[in-house]
């Protein structure tokens, strides 16, 4: 711990040429949202279902597709080498290029979920607390075609591939399901700024430093037994430089914090895309994309 902390501190000021997570220069999955955010099972009720949607982006605008699967190994800390989707997953039926449906009533899933509960059904206490179900995904897009060749796909090869996993909590009806938060807008500029126009007409000067402030929907924060939800934000851009990938409205230890980050516009003019993802820390996710242009 001490060593890790020291390394973090030592590296706090390290200059590096490595690609940043906030820079979208290749196929990326920036978030996966489940609708609803949790599945609630009721005695004798219809098995619930959720739709997973990946925010899969490719800066060149190349088409992307995402395949989802219920992972066979439901270890709470999944092995990163899990072949899911693949030999170790049961595919979810697609609901679009980047979406799929997880239906608890699908008979193909029952053996997997039973196996994760030691071959039976989870007892009431476990179900009341909630079971995190592991869903794997794989996003693909054509290989980069930028003039310089662009960065290779995460797994190399002719396709760019991003693999990952998400979870959805299944619990009984002793408590209400968590709701996804929503983002109302992204504001740009000092003193609270102005909303970035949804139609892409917002423009900023080259190399200018702009403050980006996410605006959650009024009912985005739900009350929990531990107090109001803590919303965490992630920021992404296809160009320019962000001062921080993340912000939060409340720190892990309860201190209120500013949610804005500073974005330095690129020196080159032209259109670009920005994304903000909000997570409530309990499985709820929302995202918002905006386009702006850099012009003198």
């Amino acid at each position, binding site marked *: *711990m001490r060593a890790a902390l*020291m390394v*973090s501190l030592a590296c706090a000021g390290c200059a590096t040429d*490595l*690609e940043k997570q906030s820079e979208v220069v290749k196929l990326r*999955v920036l*978030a996966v949202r489940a609708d609803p955010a949790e599945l609630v099972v009721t005695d004798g009720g219809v098995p619930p279902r959720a739709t997973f949607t990946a925010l899969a982006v490719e800066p060149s605008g190349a088409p992307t597709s995402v395949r989802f699967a219920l992972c066979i190994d439901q270890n709470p800390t999944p092995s990163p080498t899990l072949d899911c989707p693949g030999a170790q997953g049961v595919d979810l039926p697609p609901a679009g290029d980047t979406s799929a449906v997880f239906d608890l009533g699908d008979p193909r899933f029952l053996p997997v979920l039973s196996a994760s509960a030691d071959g039976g059904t989870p007892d009431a206490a476990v179900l009341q607390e909630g079971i995190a179900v592991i869903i794997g995904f794989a996003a693909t897009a054509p290989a980069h075609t930028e003039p310089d060749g662009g960065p290779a796909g995460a797994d190399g090869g002719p396709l760019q591939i991003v693999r990952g996993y*998400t979870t959805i909590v299944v619990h009984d009806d002793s408590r209400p399901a968590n709701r996804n938060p929503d983002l109302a807008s992204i504001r740009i500029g000092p003193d609270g700024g102005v909303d970035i126009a949804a139609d892409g007409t917002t423009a900023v000067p080259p190399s200018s430093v702009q403050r980006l402030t996410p605006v959650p929907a009024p009912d985005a924060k739900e009350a929990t037994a531990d107090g109001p939800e803590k919303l965490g934000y992630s920021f992404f851009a296809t160009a320019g430089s962000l001062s921080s990938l993340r912000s*939060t409205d409340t720190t892990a230890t309860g*201190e209120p914090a500013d949610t804005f980050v500073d974005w330095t516009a690129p020196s080159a003019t032209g259109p670009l895309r920005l994304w903000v993802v909000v997570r409530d820390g309990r499985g709820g996710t929302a995202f918002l994309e905006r386009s702006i242009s850099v012009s003198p």
Partner: protein
Amino acid sequence: MTVRLPKALLPFLICALALRAAAQAVPDPAAPSRPAPQEAAITPPQPIGEPVVAGYPPGATGAARVVVRLDVDAEGNVTAAEVATPPQPGFDEAALAAARTLHFAPARRGDELIPVRIQYAFNFIEPPHASSGPRTAQAQPVNLSGVVRERGTRRRLSGIEVTVAGTDLGAVTDAEGRFELRGVPVGAQRIAIAAPGYRRFETEEQIAEGRRKEVLYLLQPLYESPYEATITGERERQEVSQTAIPTTEIQRIPGAQGDALKVVEDLPGVARTSPIGGGLLVIRGSKPGDSLVYLDSEPIPLLYHFGALSSTVNPDLLEGIEFIPGNFSATYGDLTGGLVEVKTRKLREELHGYANLNLLEASAMLEAAVPGAPGLTFAIAGRRSYIDYILRAVVPKDGDVGLTVAPRYYDAQFRLDYRPPGSAHSLAFLALTSDDVLGLLVRRPPDQDPNVSGSIDTETGFQQLRVKHGYRNGPFSLETIAMFEKLNLRFQLGNESFSLDGHDLFLRSTGNLALGDDLGISAGVDVANRRLLVGAVFRQSLLFREGEFNNQGPRVDEPLTTFPAALVNRFSLGLWAEARWQPLRGLTVTPGLRFDAYVYGLAVQGRRTTYTVTPRLSVRYEPTPLWSLKGGVGLYSEGARNGDATRPFGNPEVLPERAFQVTAGGELRPLPGVFFSVEGFYKKLTDLIVRSDATEVIGGQTVPVLLDNAGAGRVYGLELLLRKSLTERFFGWIAYTLSRSDRVDRPGEPQRFFDFDQTHNLTIIASYALGGGWQIGARFRYISGNPDTPVVGSRYAAQQDVYVPIYGLTNSARLQHFQQLDVRADKVWTFDAWTLDAYLDVLNASNRRSVEGTLYNYDFSQREQFRGLPVIPTLGLKGSF
């Protein structure tokens, strides 16, 4: 001047001798200040027969003092003699000629006759002029007396000849540096002192009729050192592998900043660990934690303040360190690696102290005798960093990371020694405290971990109270140390936290008995009871172990484990006995046996007890002081540490780890002060505690096994040490280790490198006193890069917005080698009663930033080398009195 006998060269206690004659043999000046180690019951050789007088060389003028080194064999004959002082033509030859005619009653260890190397001094006084009166006038009253001290350190100098020019009057200072002259002619008289290592001293005194004059003479050393040298006779070598470094050398080693523990890394068998990791002790391929640092025979829990900037014990209270990399005797237990024994020094009775300022910290120390209480001395020392004041000034208040508690550390020591004159008993009390704190407020989570935000607070500290009683009566001696320790360790890192409050008791008692000329026995008891109140909210992968590839930090998506505050006990009892048998001259056989019991577990649940019996044997053959052969073989055990035997951190069923160690080698002392050692070693490690993915059913519940004893390993290598001990101007060494350390984490799994496997480890140190108060030194290190586990891919954990690495084979890659040059320069100004040392210690003087690890980008598709610290100069001032 400081005269340091070559410690590594002399296997025996050394004594200086006094003879009084026209050319007299007198004690070496600093010899009386030597704290005679109680462990070494050696009787020095005594000159027998007619006093040997060195003739005053024809044609010479003035006074001179020649110190010679003599090899005295077990029969008391001088077998070799050489001059230890700077050349003094004529006087040197006369001294050597006289020295070769000396004969001694042999030195003894107990009743055994042993060869030794000693220093012996001849003082030459210019023959009186024809008109001079008698050399001494015992019938006349003392009319000139005083004390001779070293300028700056105020150290009393014994064995110094004080002469009255133009007469044959002279006197030699006693152990307290005092002299008395009788019958000094009335009127103005030139007083002269010529002592090796000091500038010639001359002054004029007005002698009045019928009056006694009291004077103080201060001798200017030729090569100033702000550090008082104590001539330490070599402790009796009871260990197969043992290297002792005195404080006087430690204080001058470049890059060590005068810190005793940092010097350990420069010795053979010790791996270099990154200072960013806090300074770990890795000896002969054993993981950190398998090796311990003892302060006067009891462990200290934290070696360094954060960042390994300073050690937690003031180096000015130390006599030096003894480093034992393996095959240690039965005295030590509950560890399978090596050990460092840090020895505190004997306190001085006169008022001494220092104040030290550098860019990071300030420290001070004071020691003296307690007035009116014979035999009672005390010392008090303290240190505090002021990094907090600097950072508060430079860290922006509204940045992503703010300081809530600026980093600072402090430590303090208080010591009280009571050695009643003439008593067989001695008593010592030592109190230590150390504390490090750091508080940050992280307003925006870092890229690597969204869980880390808010307060990041760490505090580590300890307090120890020690009482040591010593008793010596003829062939029997007994030393007992009791210690109470309070540990304080807590951190909060976002939503994870850990707290530990320890209240520990230690007891160690060691008895020695000489049973005859060739047999002695030692036995002891060694008890440690740790009672820890522990609470934690953590991720298991945070508790990474040796060989676990979490060089990218803990798994962000891992669920938290909560461990409500509970009492955890760890009790160990060691009983040991050892014999020292000398069947032949020069041959010492030391068999030993140790019994250890380990009891650990939660205080409120059943505890598990395990036992180990570990026999050990060492052999040393040393027919002459010039060379020796040595070897050792033994078993070692180490009880589970750091919660390894406590759920949910570990598994109560784990057994002690074990090691089988073999060492063989030889030592050579070809020249005075020069020591060469070569050692080969092999270690077989078994029952290593490793992580397990298995589960077990306990009380009807399926729980993870977490840890078991499935690991094994082996370490082998060769260590070379060529060392020149500090005499007057130069000391240095070349240490080289060739080694291989590997592990098999579970039967059937592939063999892998140990985390700190460093094939080549070379350290070259040189320090030289230029004169005029200038000293320069350099340290060069070349060390093979550590093994590294590459990341070969990743998966995106969408809920946490992080990428989880996929690792390649453990330690299948290797970092670039480490290479660094450190330099140090000291300038010492010597005043009558104090010295001022200005020093510049430059770490990484060539600014070659070595690779300390591998940095990856967010999805592990790109990597670059993480480089260590750039050039770091440390400028300091230290005033000592």
